[in-house]
């Protein structure tokens, strides 16, 4: 755990926000996590953007869920788990299984021969099309 000021593009932004409101980065991170959780629930719950006729498509909701997940994941890992500020070996340790996670999701998760088509060919490995046409 490090008590020093955070620097860098995103962590620096968190630090600037913390300095602006006179609190620490943990507090800012907590607020951001709460806000984005509300945001993702709202994205699913509303059919149109409130106050407008703009329809929120399923694709848009999907993108919101992924982006918000990445932001929240970064906030928890970087600040609550202190990866930002701790020796880099811990970040490398945390990233090590990501390779396997990506392979599992790519190689197993997206390889269903009964999968609904529309996914690009590069993310549908081992699709047995003969099985589909039988």
């Amino acid at each position: 755990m490090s008590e020093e000021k955070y620097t860098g593009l995103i962590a620096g932004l968190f630090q600037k926000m913390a300095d602006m409101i006179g609190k620490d980065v943990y507090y800012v991170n907590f607020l951001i996590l709460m806000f984005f959780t509300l945001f993702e629930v709202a994205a699913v719950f509303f059919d149109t953007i409130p106050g407008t006729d703009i329809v929120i498509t399923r694709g848009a909701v999907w993108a919101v869920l992924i982006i918000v997940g990445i932001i929240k994941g970064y906030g928890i890992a970087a600040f609550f788990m202190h990866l930002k500020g701790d020796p880099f070996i811990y970040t490398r340790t945390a990233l090590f299984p990501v390779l396997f996670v990506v392979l599992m999701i790519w190689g197993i998760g997206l390889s269903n021969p009964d999968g609904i088509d529309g996914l690009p060919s590069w993310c549908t490995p081992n699709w047995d099309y003969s099985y589909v046409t039988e």
Partner: protein
Amino acid sequence: MSGSLHDVKNSIWMRTVVIAVGLLVVGVLAYGVMAGGIGSMMHQDWDDANEEYEAAKNAADLALEEFKFAESRWENNGSQEEGALYEEYLESKAASDEATQVADDAHHHQVDAHLSYLTWSTAGKTIMVMFIVYAAFYGVAGFFNSIKPDEEEHHGDDHEEHHGSASPIMMAGGILFFMMGFPGFVTTCKAWLGLDYDADLSGFALSGFGTILLIMGIGNWWNEDLKGHPEQVATSHPFEGQDIRKAGMWIFLISEMMVFASFFSSYLRMRTGWCTQWAVDAGKCSDVDTTTASDLLRGDIMTLLPGAINTFALIISSYTIVLALKTAKNVNWEPSKNALLAKLFPSRKKAVRNYLLITIALGSLFIVLKLVEWSHLIAEGFTIDSQAGSIFYVATGAHGLHVFIGLLVMLFMVFKADTVGYDENNGRGIEYFGLYWHFVDLAWVAIFPAFYLY
């Protein structure tokens, strides 16, 4: 385990036995009030709603029969839009429509009453079971430690060599025996509940022995940790110079990431093959063939509420554990100028303890709401015997189990915070446990959108 040593008498553990009795009383009271008291009233409401629905349904069926009879008489007489038969036809149609509407309303009321009953009943039962487990861990482990002979006192020497611990072996053995006897444990419980099963007492006994051994192993670990010992530092690449426990925790978290990744890849593999409401809305397919938990949950604010509250509860609990760590490490800590906060957190030691207690409360809320939500889903027919149900209950159940294990560890941390106390020297314990707790939060960051919103 800490970087400082404390001379703690084992008799201090008798406090946990007293706390365990208190926890048992609270658990039974919660069951009595929520499941026995309010739950019974809700059950009565549900019974009344059932009767109302049956009566309304019978009335609707009767009205429909009368309408069909009137309709056939009117049709047999040429379907003329005037005359007594036509009037009778219109009246019976209106009566049938009204009766059907009343039956629909009664059905909604019946479903609401059932879910209200399930909410209180499940919450009461869950709190009781949780508190019995809390009490078992506190009571058995505490009693086991309190009757141990005291070791020789330390004399301010913090450079004592770290000795190996038998606790991991005991805990692993306990889990082994528990799992070996677990099928027998389940069938015996089912037999005792009056279901059509034969009790397997040998399996039940083996499972019970494993549980006791596990709790004793954990108790031994708690005892060692309470007294503390010097922090071991890694001496070789790649963690050279780092605390071994911290490196070990991260290695453990790697394995946890793989466990949850396997759930996600299985879910994705199945999900890409299903034609869900989401896929229909996105124009990917036309006929829904699978109903997911998210289909049942995300459509209404009341069904989504438990999952949403749980998300906020985990985020807040992540923050409170950070505050506990920050407070423990802050040598210049001062009480807040706010009167309420100053009462809640009067001293550094009590502030750490209370932040941990808040974390336990939020984690317990998470478990209660999760089981309430499960009971509602099961009542709606979304059970584990479907593909969608299987992956949902296994993934969210595994996550819930991680939360519950975290709560059991926190029970000890609260005891330590209340007795020895956490400070700048031994605050690492909170930091390392915090890594686990934040990981559980991180996993939920992925589970919540994947299983509740998507």
